[in-house]
């Protein structure tokens, strides 16, 4: 779309294609294009470069202009619950986040509340060790809420700054699994003041329109406060994050850009929007 001579239907069609191919979805893309057309008709933009500038501002407004940082507890332990459908990168994100928080001197504890999937506890244990975080787990197959209860008690007595809860992947369409998640949230809420302070939904950047349904269901169940958009080091643009923010008001807090411990970044809206056009 760069280096165009005039604003015409071709330019707008190309922009629509770019937005849809970035997984913004048809209705959001259509809305954005309609707003651009209106401004062009009103004579507010007269060059293709100006259209691109306006487009970026529009997208920035949708995804949230300011990155906000993690909400911390007023005193005591800040609890961050990490949720999402299967395979999106929750366990890896918990490990990276633990390391990030440790780097600024925090005492961090990680709770292995995925007691279901094969070797999930072992996987998280490796990450906890890498991050220098304390690790709370129970046996495979135990009640995740029991792990969280234990972790909350340990966090309180050891005066831990951050408690990160890794939960099992689950499809938002499975009501019994969503009930399990609600129970985990209730238990930690009873045991630690104000918990959970953040509920991060981990969404794979390759996810298509189903991402909105995921975010909506998880938000209804456990009141998601932020998104982690993972695997942005691939070729997917992660435009679904724009739709999620637009439809549900959930902001992106972090992005995952690789499989190593340092591959987690605070969300920068401007860089994200620029990357849609690279």
């Amino acid at each position, binding site marked *: 779309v760069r280096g165009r001579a005039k604003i015409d239907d071709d330019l707008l069609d190309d922009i629509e*294609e770019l937005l*849809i*191919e*970035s*997984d913004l*979805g*048809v*209705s959001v893309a259509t809305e954005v294009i309609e707003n651009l057309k209106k401004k062009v008709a009103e004579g507010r933009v007269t060059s293709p470069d100006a259209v691109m500038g306006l487009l970026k501002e529009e997208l920035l407004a949708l995804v949230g202009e300011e990155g906000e940082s993690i909400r911390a507890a007023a005193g005591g332990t800040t609890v961050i619950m990490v949720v999402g*459908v*299967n*395979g*999106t*990168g929750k366990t890896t994100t918990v490990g990276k986040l633990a390391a990030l928080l440790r780097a600024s001197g925090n005492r961090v504890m990680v709770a292995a509340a995925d007691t*279901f*999937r*094969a*070797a999930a506890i*072992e*996987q998280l*244990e*490796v*990450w906890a060790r890498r991050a220098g975080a304390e690790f709370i787990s129970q046996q495979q197959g135990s009640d995740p809420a029991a792990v969280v209860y234990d972790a909350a008690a340990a966090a309180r007595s050891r005066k831990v700054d951050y408690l990160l809860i890794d939960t099992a992947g689950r*499809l*938002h*369409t499975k009501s019994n699994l969503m009930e399990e998640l609600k129970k985990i949230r209730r238990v930690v809420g009873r045991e630690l003041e104000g918990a959970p302070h953040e509920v991060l939904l981990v969404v*794979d950047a*390759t*996810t*298509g*329109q*189903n*991402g909105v*349904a995921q975010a909506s269901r998880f938000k209804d169940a456990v009141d998601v406060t932020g998104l982690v958009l993972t*695997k942005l*080091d*691939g*070729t*997917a*643009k992660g435009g*679904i994050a724009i739709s999620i923010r637009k439809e549900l008001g959930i902001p992106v807090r972090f992005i995952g850009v690789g*499989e190593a411990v340092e591959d987690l970044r605070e969300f920068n809206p401007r860089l994200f929007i620029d990357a849609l056009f690279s």
Partner: protein
Amino acid sequence: GLSEKLQEVLRKLRSKGKLTEKDVDEILREVRVALLEADVNFRVVREFIQSIREKAVGQEVLGSLTPGQQVIKIVHSELTRLMGGVQSKIAIASRPPTIVMLVGLQGAGKTTACAKLAGSLKKQGHSPLMVAADVYRPAAIRQLEVLGETLDIPVFSMGADQNPVDIAKGAVSSAMSKGRDVVLIDTAGRLHIDEELMAELEAIKAAVSPHEILLVADAMTGQDAVNVAKAFNERLGITGVVLTKLDGDARGGAALSIRSVTGCPVKFAGVGEKLDALEPFHPERMASRILG
């Protein structure tokens, strides 16, 4: 069923005996939206709509269907045709062992699919051997071993300090000496743009000459599905696709995108986290699901 907007358009055209080009365009506009909302790739949709338009103009009433309903019937059967027939068999080699390699992006469901396939092959009377060739992800080897214990299927592993190429070779020799007739190699998730890791897959392929290279892809993948499928197919030659997490409510347009850009059959559908949750892929059901 079909989207509200599409039904509305069909209702509006219900009394017409024959459709004009303009009528057909109105219907196809809504079909286009339905396919894009289902995550079918933008360019795949464009080609598809163009091919349908040629077939649809001039449709007349046929039996009890209105011309509009006829168009939808054409769309549905064309989608089904593009999905391919039912091809849910692992190509068993004339001389054992049959070697199957599972590849794909991170988190797609390869390790789980490896175990599900092994379990199904065992039920069919085969003696499978699973191979833990993911030496990168923490506890990946352990994950496959736990699944192997659950299914009572052996897992070949050389630990996380060995090269996946050597692990694959070692597994094939072990299979031959122990009479295991299907070797299923679980590889690490990787990006199609990771040169080093894609070269690793090519090296494994060169070392053991797999009979099947299955691309494992997540049913909720959006527009990026074409990029991934194209790259894996061009570098390795994919013989089949396993589409996972179809037990969710993703429309699964990635199935059409992958099929259309690689020509490979989608052989299996992952429909749950349990090890028996693997079904043959049903093209017609998928077409209905995509259309919404």
